[in-house]
């Protein structure tokens, strides 16, 4: 277990973490502000990947692909909010879960009809197809770009929520929606804006993940589960919590997968270790979630009475 190996595993963990953050930020905002459970968030991730892959293939420009993914997923989010989900905001969470689960099936089938059931081609942009050497390790430059984009988005969100007038309205709308509305702000449009922003971020995560994972129907579901773990650990509605929790989940998951089998082999004999190691590694983040829920039921960074931070 050399330091180089540990370092590259930590980078892998960070990269997974920022990807999860892009997803978790939108989901936690929607939950924190509108108290709305949106299981279809993974579908927006998938749509982002498909929009990005299609635009990239058409224009040969990855930036156009990213633009298409962000705008496309954001637009779908906007339409979803205005036409499908508004009626659900007043309903209880079970209705929301059922309805958005139906949306998952709908989007998976829609994608299958348009693009076919197999995975479609999406490559790393040429400029980022190399590996970079740093601190004695060689690491894919595309993954470094993902880390960079994720951190930039985190900074941007922080500035947006804390330093701008829109951010102030979002924060106020979360805690005192009636008061904000009575001051002449259209709270519905504010909610739609937040929803579309979350969708755009999910689309960004999708297009960034597209060159790494297989772009296929249903690709959003595994990542949605991790995202839900992140927002539970981070505290519902807390962007800061989502950021730290995403990084923690990313690093814990990656290090667990990387080193747990070896550690288990030091304790048990080979056969037992080979069976238990991967199993325990894949349980690790859920154990972490259980521990957080036991000790701090509101998550690591709880928001007071639905406030957004």
């Amino acid at each position: 277990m050399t330091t180089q190996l540990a370092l590259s595993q930590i980078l892998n963990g960070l990269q997974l973490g920022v990807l999860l953050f892009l997803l978790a930020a939108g989901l936690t905002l929607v939950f924190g502000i509108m108290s709305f459970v949106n299981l279809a968030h993974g579908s927006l991730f998938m749509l982002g990947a498909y929009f990005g892959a299609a635009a990239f293939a058409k224009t040969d420009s990855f930036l156009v692909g990213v633009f298409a993914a962000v705008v496309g997923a954001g637009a779908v989010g906007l339409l979803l909010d205005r036409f499908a989900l508004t009626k659900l905001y007043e309903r209880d969470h079970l209705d929301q879960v059922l309805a958005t689960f139906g949306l998952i099936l709908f989007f998976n089938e829609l994608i299958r009809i348009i693009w076919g059931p197999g995975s479609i081609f999406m490559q790393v942009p040429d400029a980022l197809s190399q590996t970079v050497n740093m601190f004695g390790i060689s690491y894919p430059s595309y993954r470094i770009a993902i880390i960079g984009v994720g951190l930039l988005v985190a900074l941007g969100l922080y500035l947006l929520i804390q330093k701008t007038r829109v951010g102030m309205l979002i924060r106020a709308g979360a805690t005192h929606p009636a008061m904000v509305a009575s001051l002449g702000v259209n709270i519905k449009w504010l909610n739609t804006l937040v929803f579309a922003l979350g969708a755009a971020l999910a689309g960004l995560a999708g297009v960034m993940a597209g060159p790494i994972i297989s772009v296929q129907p249903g690709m959003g579901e595994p990542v949605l589960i991790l995202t839900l773990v992140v927002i539970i650990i981070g505290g519902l509605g807390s962007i800061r919590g989502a950021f730290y929790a995403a990084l923690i989940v990313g690093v814990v998951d990656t290090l667990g997968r990387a080193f747990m089998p070896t550690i288990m082999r030091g304790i048990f004999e080979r056969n037992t270790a080979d069976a238990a190691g991967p199993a325990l590694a894949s349980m690790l983040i859920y154990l972490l979630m259980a521990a957080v829920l036991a000790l701090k039921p509101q998550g690591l960074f709880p928001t007071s009475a639905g406030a957004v931070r």
Partner: protein
Amino acid sequence: MRPLKTLAIAVAVATAATVTQAQIKIGFVAELSGPQAPLGQDQYDALMLLVEQNGGKLGGQAVQIIKEDSQLKPDVANQVVDKLLEKDKVQIITGVTFSNIMMAVHKKITDKGVFLIGSNAGPSPIAGAQCSPYFFSTSWQNDMQAEVVGKYASDKGYKSVMAMAPNYQAGKDFVAGFKRTYKGGTVVDEIYTPLNQQDFSAELAQVASKKPDALYVFYPGGLGVNFVKQFQQAGLNKSMTVMSASTVDGTTLPALRDAALGMLSGTFWGPDFPNEANQKFVAAFEKKYNRIPSQYAAQSYDAAQLLDSAIRKVSGKVDNKKAFHAALKAADFKSVRGNFKFGANQFPVQDMFMFDVAKDSKGRVSLRTVSKPLVGHTDSYVGQCQMKTL
């Protein structure tokens, strides 16, 4: 006049009845929805290719193909097979994509005395203890595709190999199959990843730090796309040999293209096989469907050819089960893979090849034959099969 007219109607009705009776009903069951659908679609397209080439006939007899989607759900597979057996009363069923589906329907179909021509999944129990005279496979027993890679690694003299596979039964089987034929070196590490894991960066970093002579992987479908992309992005393709089973194939190469160049894969057939039957098949498939056929298409095309030959031998009398069984067992057709015959458990005895991913003559990324590590290979479970006679 009246009696004559009645007679004429009676004759007409009787003729119509014999015509419908002469039509042989064949059930086709496969995964046709979800991420696995490209496999089932290739199976279906290849079957229909031969049926359409023969003008809706197999073995000179009109056939009706009844298509059912098993959705990779054993309970759904059971329902559609019940429908085929009880309502449609099919005489033959072909297809079946996944091993767990095969295990769910194999006994039900063969117990009923209906012939099942498997054109993909070949789980070990039905090649061994549960073998049935009513089951024939035109693909392989699962382990064969792993065993050929193990033999290749031995031939190459690789001293250290790492293995990676998803953590489920087939993943374990494919690693076990590899180890059965890999001699002269050691499997230094086996990495099993959760079946739903999409990102292999952590595992690839482990592999890179251990520097084995070669890496053996089994990642079917979309998992294979993930693995190959990430392996290439990590820059490992420049320094390490990847030998794969069921990872890069005709269904995933379109999503991988250049990222897969140089990957090795072990199986029984490749689109570049020079034999005449294959050249004809590949050309016709590409013309009709505008894509390179995958091995799943080849397997299913051979299933169609097998049926064609056997139905012709019995002149359409598939209800004579003893004769039809003998006609199937004879395997009197020109397989697209070249050498083909059935072993005692009615799985193919066949040559197994290694391929690498390379550009074909039209510049498309495809599989290219590298070597033939196993000649006339029989699967490892035939000894456990005590075949009943019909």
